[in-house]
């Protein structure tokens, strides 16, 4: 490391994150903040819904529940895959961990493709971002979630990069990536419940 005087303090700093949480504690700050942010967005949606019940109910009928269910299953499977990846990585089974990481990405890609198809369908039905208040929220929430998913691909890239070579393989970093991915899944479940299910 650097100079000897600082050595003890940096060592302590490295030992400091007592394992209350998996991965970097910092990522959990992000999770908390994003959750608060999305709570804000959901609240705005709910207030709009209360004021405009009929419009929202009517517009919701245009949504295809099958897409929603498929998306939810895809992301749940991806979460399962990343959890297995973390487990395998903990045990040192890096080939399996890598395979699971790619599975995660695969399920995420399935989500992405189906989401785009769903959007195209809705637009063909005449429901666009500017159609009415419900679809404002629908496209906004699904877009911002998709953006998180795309960032998730970058994050998974980092995880794969870490798992690939024995020179790296920071367990903490892999777990941090997994935390982020679970958050993406968690946010989707909330969006699914709010937009598709609650009628």
């Amino acid at each position, binding site marked *: *490391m*650097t100079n000897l005087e*600082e050595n003890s303090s940096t060592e302590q700093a490295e030992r400091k994150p007592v394992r209350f949480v998996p991965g970097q504690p910092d*990522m959990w*700050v*992000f999770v908390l903040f994003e959750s608060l942010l999305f709570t804000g967005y959901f609240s705005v949606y709910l207030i709009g819904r209360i004021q405009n019940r009929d419009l929202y109910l009517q517009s919701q009928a245009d949504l295809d529940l099958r897409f929603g269910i498929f998306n939810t299953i895809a992301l749940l499977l991806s979460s399962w895959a990343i959890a297995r990846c973390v487990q395998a990585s903990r045990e040192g089974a890096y080939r399996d961990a890598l395979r699971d990481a790619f599975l995660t990405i695969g399920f995420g890609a399935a989500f992405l493709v189906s989401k785009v198809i769903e959007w195209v369908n809705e637009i063909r039905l005449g429901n666009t*971002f500017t159609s009415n208040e419900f679809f404002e929220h629908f496209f906004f929430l699904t877009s911002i979630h998709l*953006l998180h998913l795309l960032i998730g691909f970058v994050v998974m890239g980092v995880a794969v990069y870490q798992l690939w070579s024995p020179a790296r393989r920071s367990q903490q970093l892999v777990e941090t990536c997994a935390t982020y991915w679970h958050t993406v899944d968690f946010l989707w479940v909330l969006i699914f419940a709010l937009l598709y299910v609650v009628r």
Partner: protein
Amino acid sequence: MSVPTGSPVARFVWNFRHHPKRELWFAWWVMVIFYQLYGVLFFLVTRVQPPPSPAWDTPAVVQWFSERHHGLLAGFGIVFLISGMCAPMNALLAYSMRRMSVSRIFGYSYLVMYALSAIPGMLVMAIAMTVGALRPDRDPEMIHWLYDFAFLSFSGTMGVFMIGSLVWLVAILIDNNRVFPKWFGYLGLCNALTEVVVAPAWIFQRGVFAWNGAIAWWINMVVFVTYTACFIVLLRKMVEREDFGTGPLPDLPSKATRSQRDSVGALQ
């Protein structure tokens, strides 16, 4: 040379002349003062924030301008005087990236991006509002157009801030010198995303995504204020910890030993 005691003025003068970190403190204080002035000027003097609605009709807009005639001209006059304060602020942030273990390109990219960001993001609005308030007898349709121009250029040109945030946050996340905590890098991601969220302001004249909407303005403001407060505090910590080396930035010593070290700033 030992730290002087005595009146705040004497201490300030000594610090100005001899403090080893005076350049950094200069930049930090310029930043803090700038944000205070910015808040006062935009919220209290010109009263352009919180923003009015894009859904108003032309007479309401003309009325809005006439109520704020003097505030707009005087307030933005001060903005035209002090906008240069952004430069030391951006310099400090670029410096923070220079202190990291990452390539110098991050710091330079950030410096250039933010150097130009104030023009579409603040000065164009100031100019449009000034021209709008300049002649109250102007054709109302033109005044309405200037109103749109001002608020859309202010809220809708967030791309620069978004990319700038991304540059900074990537630097923070791959940095080995621990200049900033990783959670602040992740917070930068939240901030960058809010710049995306404000883009629908170009599309909607009413509702939660309009330039004054619950999502595009109010929630965004909360994130922006939080982020700004965090980086002001973290930059202060960085300056305090700075050892002018190239390795990891040391942590601050405990409070007992800290009071014996060189003074933190003139007004302490």
